[in-house]
């Protein structure tokens, strides 16, 4: 049922006629395919999120507030998104208007001394980083890359990425927030609410950002965040990232006395874990991530050769894999991760380098020499620092999602990685997913500032255009869930949003959601979330991405 004309008119009066549309072509470009990187749900072939009633492009907090108040008046749901990558930002039922936050894209302030930036939702990691670098600062960028919105990641989702280790993840870095609450009031958290500025997001007293951002954020289902401040961290490099080369083999020849990128490999998973712990103990490292393994253990080095060659294509894979040198390096880097060392001064870097060598000596690990070739080294630097190649998650054919996760301290993951890999490798034989070698696990070395945890997202690549591939992938994910539950690993990443969206692209029925929540280790957390929702979103204008378990009163 279309949006009644008088409501459309009222919304148009708020944002202006050029910033609202209910044209079907526009609406359809705001539907997300669940045969795709829907993120932690499905995949489901030929399934799309429902059309919104209209799409709006608000330009200011005042406009957002007016829209939200109107929605409360008429009982219409709203869903705001910044960059629309994954199903999370889209409506999950019919009665929803889509807010595209793209126009609210200002970097309002970069406080160089106190090291924070104030941004709007449409700012992406890349532009924030570029502006921060001019001032000797850097921003953490989420694992999904610099095309994504730091505000969205910090307030509404997760925010883990390669620079967690030194930069802190977004959870650590979130300061003051301006929040248009689900009922239309505006809350400013922390020091901001007291008129004292953006620098502190806690208090007064209890930290009220705890309402909307726990381990994970509300995923667009609890109002709209219109500004936030994010802590930055130091950038000892030049004002602009120096980049050369022909696409896609861009390279950043950053000064070696301040920047080095290594791929470290280990003789055993225990040694790998030991090294992670030691790196955190030593306090070294600017970025640390097991990044390129996302291409698959068997394919990753060949892929790197392709990506660092302007004439390379995926067609080269088969031939490259015949090359004995490629085979050797592939084998060598089985248990690997990448680390970037950045020194605030040359002395600082030298010490870090020596500490790293000491760690390698103690663990029997080594630097993979092939990854030190200049064209690869400098490509790794620009890749990990700017994190602007994350579309490579989908390089093979356009579909990927991650299974398992093995989230926890390094010992947790390393003790299970081969099992998770073997399980996937068996399933690869069935043909629905890319045969990448079973272990396609990617994740940070250090899930938060200072380290402590790892994540092992096992990348599963499939073809969203191929029904058999999509359905075979889902069967595989169902099997992963079952396997992990049997093993006591908990439900994996493949199902993290199963309570938010169902096979029809819409919010699943209550029974399904309840069953998922009741089988969690602490179902009460969903009951408390239900109470929070009732208190802060009494008209229930969000969707099931904010997960609730309604108890019988």
């Amino acid at each position, binding site marked *: 049922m279309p949006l009644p004309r008088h409501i459309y008119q009222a919304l148009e009066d708020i944002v202006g006629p050029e910033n609202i549309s209910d044209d079907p072509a526009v609406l359809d470009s705001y539907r997300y395919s669940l045969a795709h990187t829907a993120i932690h749900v499905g995949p489901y072939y030929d399934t799309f999120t429902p059309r919104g009633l209209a799409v709006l492009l608000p330009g200011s907090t005042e406009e957002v507030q007016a829209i939200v108040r109107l929605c409360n008046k008429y009982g219409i749901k709203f869903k705001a998104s910044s960059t629309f990558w994954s199903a999370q930002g889209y409506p999950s039922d019919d009665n929803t208007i889509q807010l595209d936050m793209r126009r609210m894209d200002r970097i309002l302030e970069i406080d160089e001394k106190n090291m924070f930036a104030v941004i709007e939702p449409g700012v992406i990691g890349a532009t924030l980083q570029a502006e921060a670098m001019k001032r000797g600062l850097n921003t953490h960028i989420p694992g999904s890359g610099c095309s994504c919105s730091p505000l969205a990641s910090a307030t509404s989702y997760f925010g883990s990425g390669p620079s967690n280790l030194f930069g802190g993840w977004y959870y650590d870095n979130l300061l003051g927030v301006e929040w248009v609450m689900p009922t239309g009031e505006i809350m400013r958290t922390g020091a901001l609410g007291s008129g004292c500025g953006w620098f502190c997001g806690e208090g007064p007293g209890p930290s009220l950002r705890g309402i909307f951002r726990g381990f994970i954020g509300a995923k667009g289902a609890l109002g709209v965040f219109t500004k936030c401040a994010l802590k930055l961290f130091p950038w000892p490099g030049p004002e602009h990232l120096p980049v050369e080369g022909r696409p896609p083999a861009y390279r950043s020849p950053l000064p070696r006395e301040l920047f080095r990128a290594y791929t470290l490999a280990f003789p055993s998973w225990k040694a790998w874990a030991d090294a992670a712990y030691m790196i955190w103990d030593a306090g070294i490292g600017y970025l640390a991530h097991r990044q390129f393994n996302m291409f698959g253990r068997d394919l990753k080095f060949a892929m790197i050769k392709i990506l660092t060659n302007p004439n390379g294509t*995926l067609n080269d894979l088969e031939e490259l894999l015949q090359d004995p040198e490629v085979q050797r390096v592939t084998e060598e880097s089985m248990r690997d991760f990448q680390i970037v060392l950045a020194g605030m001064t040359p002395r600082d870097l030298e010490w870090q380098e020596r500490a790293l060598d000491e760690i390698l000596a103690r663990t029997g690990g080594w630097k993979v020499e092939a990854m030190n070739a200049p064209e690869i080294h400098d490509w790794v630097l620009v890749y990990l620092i700017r994190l602007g*190649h994350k579309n490579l998650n989908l390089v093979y054919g356009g579909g990927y999602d991650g299974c398992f996760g093995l989230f926890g301290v390094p010992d947790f993951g390393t003790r299970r990685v081969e099992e998770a890999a073997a399980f996937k490798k068996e399933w690869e034989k069935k043909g629905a997913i890319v045969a990448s070698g079973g272990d396609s696990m990617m994740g940070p070395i250090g899930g938060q500032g200072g380290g402590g945890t790892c994540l092992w997202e096992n990348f599963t690549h499939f073809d969203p255009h191929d029904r058999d591939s999509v359905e075979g992938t889902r069967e595989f994910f169902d099997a992963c869930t079952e396997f992990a539950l049997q093993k006591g690993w908990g439900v994996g990443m493949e199902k993290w949003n199963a309570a938010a969206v169902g096979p029809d692209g819409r919010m699943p029925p209550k029974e399904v959601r309840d069953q998922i929540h009741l089988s969690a280790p602490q179902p009460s957390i969903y009951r408390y979330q239900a109470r929070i929702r009732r208190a802060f979103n009494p008209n229930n204008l969000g969707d099931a991405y904010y997960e609730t378990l309604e108890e019988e009163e």
Partner: protein
Amino acid sequence: MPLEDFAGEADRCSQCSYCKWIPFDHIKSWRFAKNCPSIAYHNFNSYSARGRYAVTRSLLRGQIGYTDTLRRIIFTCLTCGSCDVSCKICRYNLEPLEMVRELKFRAVGDGQGLEAHRVVIESLNREQNTLSQPRARRGDWANGLDVPRLPKDKAEVVFHAGCRSSYDPQLQATARAAVTLLRNAGVNVGIMGERELCCGGRVYSMGYREEFARFAQANVNAWASAGVKMVVTSCADGYHAFKRLYPRLGLPVEVLHTVELLARLIEDGKLKFRSPVPMTVTYHDPCHLGRQGEPYVPWNGVEKKIFNQIIVYEPKRPRYNGAWGVYDPPRQVLRSIPGLELVEMERIQEYSWCCGAGGGVREAYPEFSLWTARERITEAQATGAEALVTACPWCERNFMDANDASGEPMPVYDIVDLVQKATL
């Protein structure tokens, strides 16, 4: 490839929005980070490549019909190809530029072409140019020039002026200068004069495939009759048509852009500079000379899968990702001009921002077209340069019109203008 052939790509589009930004590695500021004028101006997702994939899918499924909005979504694409470059930083099996071209062909085929473009087609059919100008006057720009007029005279190299240079009074002098420079450097170049035909490139990018094909064939026939072996042009649009589009029709053409030839002549010592040109300039890479100016590689193949679900092609398909566009020759020419200092904008080479003239946008959406040009002028001014120089008359015309329309004007030159100054 009919639009149906893009159904797979529509499903396989990453939905990443990389098509809305220059390659992230190259972003140097918040201000000059965007790459796609149509979404930068309109903001709705549908105005990006990923949006147009979604629209393609909906159209193919019959979920949407043609509305003014849909037509706007389709025809405001400048076909500048910047989305294609950004997409291909990571993707090897998507062709967003081809998709949007096909979308336009489909819309035109469905009778949904724009009135503004129909005017151009009529002009083309009637007068063999896109500017509604009399055919008979096409060669007037060269009046008084001592240059062979083909096919009456003979020359192995023909200078193709193009519709814009032929008829635009402010740009005709540049065409004259180009021919003069080449002849003075010993190049035996002639012109077709009033017999010159439109290259067809502009109407191709508006969605008129058949008209384009007719003109391509006519041009090739005319050159064959005249004994032409090589075409030189100062128009990036024409350059791209001859180099990349004609061979797809099985009509290979040996073509150079004027700047490529000038670069060679300077290196060979056949073009010497006498006077300094003390100016700081910044160079705008025309889309069709830069990222779309890569060599043509014939390909006729099929899609296949390896490792179960990795999509590749048999045989290997050319990438056309902007890596091998014509970026160096114009810069070499500029740097060799004594006294001239070249400073670069933030968005250059394969990630250059479009001038706003292409794809039929100038003809159909003048406000958007000039906004796009204005954006580029602002970027040029931010370098501190005194003038903006480029290598395409359509870019130049759009920049000059944007100068007149709003904001602080910036002098616009063609490379040839500056080379000519330096030879005086």
